[in-house]
């Protein structure tokens, strides 16, 4: 019988968490980009502190100002301060990304666990459902659903809120997670420690939550970070097309949508929100990469690159 990977990775006495931190810190790019990401998050979260103007105040005498000491990122077509809009726009983009990702991970993990653990008809039904979701053209459904949800006048779905778009993005991107978790669960289900737990008299629910879930946590965490990047891009794309969060509330996506006409005359209007999306997504990807190396014992050697 092969030793489990964890035993190969660590011989000395050290906690799993400390080993994880150590492995992560060895991944230079991940650490570097995590700092960038952290910086952006601080800026975005503290936007009211860092903004120099209100993000929605118009100043029509100062339209299309290039970046200057007064307007660090210039002004847009209505004279609004781009710096204030950019850091405020990030709030929506990041929160929508986080929410959508949490929803996707939640649904995906639940479906994957049930499917992999119980097998049989439960598995068959849930996997066919997953395939149905996977075969639907996603962008099209996103557009239809966001428009549709905006028309319903439900109290928690008021225009300008980001719930509907997060729900829709999350509800349409859980399939990969479900398959991943299912595969891992099927493998774990037949491990002897599950049998041992059952022999102790542990019920199915507890076995799932306490014995299987922690073992699939690392792939879930990694997919979550990568899914976060995906969700941010999807949100930006939707907002760019005008189906996302509506103006005047700024998001990185809808800030971009106004810029097409001015790409040559006022390129800063596109560059700054675009750059933010780029930086956040690449930072999250490196973070995910670092997490995977740190959490997955098989990657220990490669983690030094």
């Amino acid at each position: 019988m092969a030793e489990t990977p964890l035993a190969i990775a660590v011989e000395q006495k050290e906690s799993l968490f400390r080993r994880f931190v150590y492995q992560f810190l060895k991944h230079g790019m991940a650490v570097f980009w995590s700092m960038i990401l952290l910086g952006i998050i601080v800026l975005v979260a503290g936007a009211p502190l860092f903004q120099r103007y209100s993000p929605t105040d118009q100043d029509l005498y100062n339209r299309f100002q290039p970046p200057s000491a007064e307007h660090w990122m210039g002004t847009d077509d209505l004279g609004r301060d781009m710096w204030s809009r950019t850091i405020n726009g990030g709030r929506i983009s990041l929160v929508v990304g986080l929410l959508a990702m949490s929803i996707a991970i939640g649904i995906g993990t639940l479906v994957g666990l049930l499917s992999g653990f119980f097998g049989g008809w439960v598995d068959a039904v849930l996997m066919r459902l997953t395939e149905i979701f996977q075969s639907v053209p996603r962008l099209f459904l996103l557009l239809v659903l966001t428009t549709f949800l905006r028309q319903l006048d439900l109290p928690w779905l008021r225009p300008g809120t980001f719930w509907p778009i997060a729900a829709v993005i999350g509800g349409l991107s859980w399939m990969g997670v479900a398959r991943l978790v299912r595969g891992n669960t099927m493998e774990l289900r037949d491990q002897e420690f599950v049998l041992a737990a059952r022999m102790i008299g542990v019920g199915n629910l507890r076995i799932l939550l306490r014995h299987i879930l922690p073992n699939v946590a690392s792939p879930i965490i990694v997919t979550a970070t990568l899914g976060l990047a995906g969700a941010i891009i999807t949100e930006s794309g939707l907002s760019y097309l005008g189906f996302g969060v509506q103006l005047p509330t700024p998001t990185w996506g809808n800030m971009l949508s106004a810029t097409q006409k001015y790409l040559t005359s006022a390129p800063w209007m596109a560059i700054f929100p675009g750059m933010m999306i780029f930086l956040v997504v690449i930072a999250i990807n490196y973070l995910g990469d670092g997490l995977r190396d740190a959490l997955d014992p098989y990657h220990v050697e490669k983690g030094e690159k």
Partner: protein
Amino acid sequence: MDDILNVQNLETRFKVKGGWNHAVNGVSFRVSEGETLGIVGESGCGKSVSVMSITRLIPIPPGQITAGTAMFGGRDLLKLSDQELSKVRGAEIGMVYQEPMTAFNPVLSIGRQLTEPLEVHQGLTRQQANARAEELLSLVGIPNPKERMRDYPHQFSGGMRQRAMIAMALVCSPKLLIADEPTTALDVTIQAQIVRLVKELRQQLGMSIIWITHDLSLIAGLAHRIVVMYAGYVIEEAPIKKLYANPSHPYTMGLLNSLPRLDESEHRRLESIDGLPPILHKKPSGCPFAPRCRFVVERCHREVPALLTVEEDHRAACWVNPHTRRER
């Protein structure tokens, strides 16, 4: 003495491609209070499947328990609801596995796994459960139990892990401990330690033990009674001394002759039993050991031998008395 477990006529089979694999074919045995029963046989002879069937841990499907009873404390384990069975597992029956690495969850600390049965069955608080688990760890001879509780399975050596496994099986003070080849994965020196430990624990705690092994020399100093299995049948059952002194089934004789003995005056070649145990896709019409048997007579191919009494508490399933070579 009262029987703590009485298994009668247990039959288990597994669905395989194009039919059934008959793994356990009418096995009966009993364990009395405080007794240690050894179940001995080659790999694949149905030892593990028998005890796994009793606790209903075999995968169903493809497995299927088709007949039998397993009376434990006045209840038939095979007829209990899943919920009732969960209350027996871990609380009244503890189990130790062959491979202590895989039997522990790699991402949970030893302490959390040790306290789990207590939480599930006795509803103790975290503190009480921790105290009890520490007590058990020190009982099975793990130094610094308080600190080791926080360790993860991979930080334990193989022998330590098996000790912790035993502690986990005993944490709820079960009446019956089932050990499924608990020393097979360990070094010989560690094997001896584990056997000694179990003997001590048996004396202190007074539980009954079913010890499954293929190692007749290991079980010699441990068990009170032995059940020898072959191809899903019990082929011989006897108190330990009688079995070693007077093996009455050709298979048992073969097993014993394949062991080196300390008291032999001259060197001899260790004997082996030719062939492999059969996989039964249908129930045999004759003795399953007949193809490998040196004493085979015509009747062996015709009729499955019943367990015949050799002496009062010694029974063997063979139509021939291998000592006299006469039919019984």
